[in-house]
């Protein structure tokens, strides 16, 4: 019997994977991809499937694992965010040459905006670079279907296939009906073939030739794949302007044209931008005097179109070069282009007046902040107090928000807190300057990319303090377990990997574990660590600041609740708000004084250690 649910786009992708008989799914969490694996797990449990799932330690690890499953003949997938594909790029480029046996689908979720990423990079270009096909869904339902197509293509042509959902597909919700799922009975069988699976450069040239042939064939297939690639031209008719769109932008265009009943504007929908459906595109181009290309996020389709004189898009200045193409942005650029070409513009109201009004209201800027009770806040407060002159290198995770407390100076990529700390050390040491440096990294990020940088730093004699902010979860992306917890992705038991032992294994001789809620102790330990790194026999000092995340562990994270209040002693110096920045401490406009918001306060009691006047006290 069919079941209908309102699924998150990532849930629709998970459904598509299991409908396609996917037997292995690996992933490393990252917005906007994080919910795919949990949704796979939910369906595996509810439908009694036996698909193997894992949170891998990073995206390269995830892809390598899925690739091995694929060459045993099983269907496999790995899921990540777009910058995760950078980490997996080494694996991807090579896997494209080697090819697959069972279907291998890489789901790389883009974040135009960016909402929760370092860059707005376009995965479709990564696919072009690796020479693998890429599919670009426009909504959850299409993403679900495209996953099946990707699996089939990958198996038929023996090439990995990338699905590139943008954030508005991943985090859209749509009602989707589905039939019961069944177990794929396919068994593993690995046929040894060293000239392929361990190809040396001589064989790589041959494999490159094979890959090029596959792409040519797939390109032809895409010309006639009319479920995903189609145009709305009427035979024999010529048009002053046509629209070429793919992915989420197509969904916006289609809604807009339907709403305004604009049948005078033909559309070419490109669901498979690479290899490019050239035949279909040239048919469309020859019927239009100009084409406006609207694609998320970069200029892939625009580059691939032949007749440059006809193309309007980012390169001609008609489409913004950065930022997400949300409906009002598309509406405006579309309307402007219609006016420029002296075609009928859209009818409708302008939102400019409302936007101006909102600006004039000077509404409070809501920057994201660490949660009330967050152990990172306590650690950051102590770090700043004990090492005010240090360079603070940091990393990717909730604790990037330590920037608000003035304790994050750099954030480059996963693991760069450590590698940049050693880089800073050597750059200053070369000049004979003793520059204090404190690196901060989360536990999950350390497992992802910390070790290579740490052992490099130890080996090459760098000296700095590394604080591992161990909140016993991957908090920013939705509380996925880390390897230290002894829990696997599906909740089953795992071997718990000790952070301390890994750090020691990287060659670090100074390791101190503490609870950052105790600010005094943290400051003392930071002082001791500073002394150690200056000793002749010293080196890198690692402090593991361990306290559970208050969101993941709730009341368990705060066993001793302390209700607090602000007394008359308060000098209104704002020190607590500037340096501690707890959302529960605020300036009450009516009372004209610093107060505690009891609804937001987590009763962690850390702020009792913060006020220089001792004006924050526990309520008896």
């Amino acid at each position, binding site marked *: 019997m069919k079941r209908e649910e309102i699924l998150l786009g990532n849930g629709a992708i998970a459904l598509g994977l299991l409908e396609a008989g996917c037997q292995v799914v690996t992933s490393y969490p990252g917005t906007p991809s994080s919910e795919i694996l949990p949704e796979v797990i939910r369906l595996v449990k509810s439908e009694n499937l036996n698909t193997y799932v894992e949170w891998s330690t990073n995206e390269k690890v995830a892809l390598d694992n899925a690739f091995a499953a694929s060459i045993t003949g099983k269907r496999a997938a790995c899921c990540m965010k777009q910058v995760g594909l950078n980490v997996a790029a080494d694996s991807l480029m090579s896997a494209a040459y080697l090819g697959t046996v069972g279907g291998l689908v890489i789901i790389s979720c883009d974040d135009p905006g960016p909402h929760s990423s370092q860059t707005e990079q376009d995965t479709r270009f990564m696919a072009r670079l690796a020479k693998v096909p890429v599919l670009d869904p426009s909504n959850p339902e299409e993403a679900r279907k495209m996953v099946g197509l990707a699996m089939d293509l990958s198996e038929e042509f023996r090439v990995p296939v990338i699905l590139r959902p943008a954030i508005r597909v991943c985090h859209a919700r749509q009602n989707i009906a589905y039939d019961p799922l069944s177990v794929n009975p396919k068994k593993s069988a690995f046929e040894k073939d060293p000239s392929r699976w361990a190809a040396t450069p001589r064989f790589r040239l041959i494999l490159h030739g094979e890959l090029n042939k596959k792409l040519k064939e797939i390109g032809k297939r895409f010309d006639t794949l009319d479920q995903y690639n189609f145009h709305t031209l009427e035979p024999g008719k010529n048009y002053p302007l046509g629209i070429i769109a793919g992915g989420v932008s197509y969904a916006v265009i289609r809604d807009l044209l339907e709403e305004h009943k604009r049948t005078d504007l033909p559309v070419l929908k490109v669901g498979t931008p690479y290899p490019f459906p050239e035949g279909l595109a040239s048919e469309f181009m020859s019927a239009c005097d100009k084409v406006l290309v609207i694609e998320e996020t970069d200029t892939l389709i625009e580059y691939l179109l032949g007749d440059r004189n006809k193309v309007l898009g980012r390169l001609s200045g008609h489409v913004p070069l950065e930022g997400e193409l949300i*409906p009002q942005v598309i509406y405006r650029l579309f309307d402007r282009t219609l006016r420029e070409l002296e075609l009928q513009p859209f009818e409708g109201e302008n939102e400019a007046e409302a936007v101006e009004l909102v600006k004039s*209201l000077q509404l409070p800027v809501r920057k994201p902040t660490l949660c009330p009770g967050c152990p990172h806040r306590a650690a950051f407060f102590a770090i700043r107090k004990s090492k005010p002159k240090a360079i603070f290198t940091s990393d990717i995770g909730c604790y990037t928000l330590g920037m608000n407390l003035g304790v994050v100076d750099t954030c480059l990529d996963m693991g760069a807190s450590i590698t940049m700390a050693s880089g800073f050390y050597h750059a200053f040491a070369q000049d004979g300057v003793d520059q204090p440096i404190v690196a901060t990294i989360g536990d999950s990020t350390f497992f992802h990319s910390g070790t290579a940088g740490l052992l490099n730093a130890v080996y090459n004699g760098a000296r700095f303090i590394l604080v591992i902010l161990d909140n016993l979860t991957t908090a920013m992306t939705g509380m996925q377990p880390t390897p230290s917890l002894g829990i696997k992705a599906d909740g089953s038991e795992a071997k718990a990997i000790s952070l301390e032992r890994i750090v020691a294994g990287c060659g670090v001789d100074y390791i101190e574990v503490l609870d950052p809620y105790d600010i005094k102790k943290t400051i003392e330990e930071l002082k001791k660590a500073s002394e150690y790194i200056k000793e002749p026999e010293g080196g890198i000092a690692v402090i593991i600041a361990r306290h559970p995340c208050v969101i993941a562990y709730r009341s368990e994270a705060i066993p001793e609740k302390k209700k607090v209040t602000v007394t008359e002693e308060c000098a209104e110096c704002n020190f607590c708000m500037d340096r501690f920045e707890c959302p529960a401490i605020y300036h009450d406009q009516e009372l004209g004084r610093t107060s505690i918001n009891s609804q937001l306060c987590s009763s962690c009691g850390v702020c009792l250690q913060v006020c220089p006047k001792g004006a924050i006290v526990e309520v008896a």
Partner: protein
Amino acid sequence: MNTINMVLCGLGGQGILFMTKVLAQVALDKGYNVMGAETHGMAQRGGSVVSHLRLGNVQGSLVRTNEAPLLLALEENEGYRNLPYLARGGRLYVNTTSPLFPREEVKGFLAKKEIISRSVPAGKIALDLGAPMSSNLALLGFFSAFEDKPFDYENLRQTIGKISPDRFRDKNLSIFDAGYHEGKKG
């Protein structure tokens, strides 16, 4: 069926996703196709959170500015921030205790666009009933006092009962009812 667009907004942690889930489920149960867009990731850490909901045969998940007849705000300033989404003749529902709502500066705009604005102390209602985190349910109850199908009181109440976890069901329904009665009093 015509498309119904709505925007729900507030601050991280106020339960905007749950509120969206209720409305989406109500619509689905009444035969609508549902499409929505949510905020996840860094913005959830105390930042502005917006959720879009579209009912009807649409492809895209985001509402365009000027296109939403309904705007629900769990926080007054977030309501103002999302005013550009409201369509002419739209309805604005805001959780606030401010007697000065709506702010003087926006009155002219609301009148010109024939927007009806209504406020309810949803946070206070929830707090008085011992569930300070449930202002979302009080706002939904208030909202249902003024709206027709599919978002009438009976439909919403039934769905909240259906999707609430057992141990919260009675409490959730009592907060929802309190919001509804506040609206009926109005």
